């Protein structure tokens, strides 16, 4: 039972962390290596919220707005010149991540920051005591997933984004302002990443480099999901389960590389990853 809860909540957290990266990769076809930096920015929004004494949950909207604003700037000044050089875009966003990380260090120091717990304690569920926060995270992941699905399937923006994903040239010739779609999607992606940063604060220590450790896992999941949020959910479940099971039964060290190794193998065998299913 405990194991099942662990798997579900781990998958939920992975999904929360990767969804912003997925949106950007899907539409812009660019691997945003600044994703880790957005996570960190979000977590520091939680730190700031706590310092000025606001309700810790208020950090969520704040992080989304800050992330989206920074994302908009990054898209305009860094990403736009690199659309035709996707490998260089990886590097430029990685460089941006370094810059953001150092700016945070200059402002807050490099020490670990403490944040108030969003939700403390445990609840008893199906006979086991389980961290209340992890369960809430599961709920939040489902909410984000639903919101994302509705945006993609039901809104004009979602329609434009899907058009850009399928055939950007055609989309442009049909009068869709693809530049604007890219900008908005990048802002939303960065906003979601920052939001995820806040949600991570109860689970991990907050320091200027915290984003990097989450980046690789999220990146591998997105590569496997190949621009489909359903495939991302499936990948999070499968690889999250693998991570939990390997950590529990074999070794935590192997568990920590499980996602990266398994995802690489899946891609080697089936380059489209989970998106075919």
């Amino acid at each position: 039972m405990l194991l099942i809860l662990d798997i579900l909540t781990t998958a939920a957290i992975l999904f929360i962390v990767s969804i912003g990266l997925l949106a950007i990769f899907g539409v812009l076809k660019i691997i945003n290596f600044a994703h880790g930096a957005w996570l960190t920015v979000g977590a520091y929004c939680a730190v700031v919220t706590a310092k000025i004494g606001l309700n810790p949950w208020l950090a969520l909207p704040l992080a989304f707005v800050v992330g989206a604003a920074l994302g908009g700037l990054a898209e305009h000044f860094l990403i736009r010149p690199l659309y035709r050089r996707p490998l260089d875009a990886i590097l430029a966003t990685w460089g941006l991540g370094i810059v953001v990380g150092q700016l945070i260090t200059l402002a807050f120091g490099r020490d670990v920051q403490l944040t108030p717990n969003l939700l403390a304690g445990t609840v008893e569920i199906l006979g086991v005591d389980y961290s209340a926060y992890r369960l809430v995270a599961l709920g939040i992941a489902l909410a984000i997933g639903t919101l994302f699905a509705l945006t993609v399937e039901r809104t004009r923006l979602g329609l434009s984004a899907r058009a850009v994903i399928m055939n950007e040239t055609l989309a442009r010739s049909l009068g869709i302002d693809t530049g604007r779609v890219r900008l908005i999607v990048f802002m939303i992606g960065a906003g979601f990443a920052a939001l995820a940063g806040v949600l991570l604060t109860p689970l991990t220590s907050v320091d200027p480099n915290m984003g990097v450790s989450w980046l690789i896992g999220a990146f591998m999941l997105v590569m496997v999901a190949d621009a489909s949020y359903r495939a991302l959910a499936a990948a999070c479940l499968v690889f999250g389960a693998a991570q939990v099971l390997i950590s529990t039964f074999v070794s935590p060290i192997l568990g920590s590389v499980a996602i990266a190794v398994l995802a690489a193998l899946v891609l080697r065998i089936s380059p489209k990853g989970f998106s075919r299913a």
Partner: protein
Amino acid sequence: MLETLPATGRAAAAPGRLSRAAPFVAAAVAALALWIAPLFLDTFAVNVLTRSMIYAVLAVTVDLLWGFAGILTFGQAAFFGGGAYAAAMILSAYGATPMGIALALATAIAAPALLGLVVGWLSFYHRSTPLYASVISLVVPIVVVQLIYAGGAWTGSSSGLVGFDVLPFEIEGYFRLAALVLITVTLAAWILVRSDAGRALVALRDNEARCAYLGLNPRRLQIVLTAALAAVAGFAGFLFANASGVVAPENAGFLFGTELVIWVALGGRGTLLGPVLGTIAIDYLSANLSGDLPFLWRLLLGTAFVAIIILLPGGLADLVLRLWRAFPIGRSGHAAPAIAEREAETEPVAADTPILQVRGLAKAYGSLTVLEAIDLEIRAGELVSLVGPNGAGKTTLMRCLSDGTEPFTGSIAIAGTALAGLTPNRIVGLGVGRKFQVASVFESLSVADCLRLARASRDGLSPVGRAATLSLPQAALDVLRMTGLDHRLDQPARLLSHGQKQALELAMVVALEPRLILLDEPTAGLTKAERATIGRVLKGLTAGGRIAAVLVEHDLDFVREISSRIVVLHQGRLVLDGTVEAVVGSELVRTIYAGGAHG
């Protein structure tokens, strides 16, 4: 055998004697300067620069992979760390006895090379993407670091290994050793990238598909390169372990891998001195400044990196080169090789075996049937035109004939050998040359280099120098002469006009000495004169009775003029197959083309 023709264009003789020796002289001067440098430097500087020079060796390997062969890699850190750990572990166990040192050195090179083979195999396969190779190169250092953590007492886990015996050198000795290694590696890399084989690396970066369709095996090249440079990185790791006396998991980590890429990018990918000097300068400055302004320094570095990637992809070396070129002195330029004729090597196919035999070929994308029940036999000396309206399946048929990994049913045989499952480069080996619809050449190489690569699968490429002559079969020479390309051998292919690129690609395909030439709309977008030239070439080629050609063509006048036979495809089926008169006069063709194609 080889009759050297008068060199065309600029005389290829005198210039360059001195410039060819220059790098060796420069290397010797650099070696001498670095040999005496420790006498004038303080201990701190000697120590830091020793490390910087070892890192610069790594930067050269990253640059060869990324700057020259187009493979963005973060994995060199893993091979470096692997070599360093192998050395440290063996030296801890056996001490710095001659035996221990030899074993440490051998393992530090062999283990990363083996790992490199595995990584290469994982990263490069038919239809793999550059992004996937980069993904793998990210995963490798992460896995290696976790293995180090899991290694317990063997690897010292998170605290690394210290206090093992090392080579019996003073710090000056290590400085000189690192300097010699760096100079040797850089010089070797310089020789490689200037050689004909070095052109193949650039060709791989420019146009991997064309490489495969010239019969080169891009996978093997990439895997061999990965393994060889992994070995070099492992050797650098061995030096590092000895010189620093400490190895830590960070030495193998993904972050170190990204740092290497940053140094190469700032210095100037695609040049050799740029990354070397960039790495030494940045690492040395880092060591000096990180004490006083640690965060600010990394902030500046990160900002500079982003700016360089966006604004100056060629790095600082590119800036220097641009300034240098502004001075109109000492321009030697590349002398074009002399071209020579060689005798044909293609063995004629036995008269009773058709060159191409297609039986019951069918292909579908999901529920959409693109080709069905195609039967076709083509013999030497035939020039078969494949006509039909758009969407008839002509290009799909060409693709099936040249890439056996395309899923199709039925059988295709080239001179009796079935090609199902074979990758394009192996099909080229069977004697098939394919010219694409959009001219596919190596944009950053010269015309001569493009042609040399076309010969590489037969003649090989020298990894140390440039051949002075370029010997091509008569037919390829004819194409060059008729189109005037023989006067442009030293020009980069990207400067050619559309028609010249088409002609160059045709010459490259002909230089392969194929038995069967596949041409997809070779005359699209060409002028009348260019069209006539290509027609003459094709007629001449097949007239000898050894070669067959299949061309997809829309221009029925052109088809009528040159073909010996016409095959009509319509809605995925072969509806007509006959002589020019029979097909052109047929009612069916008029109906398919709505009676409009010609009068």
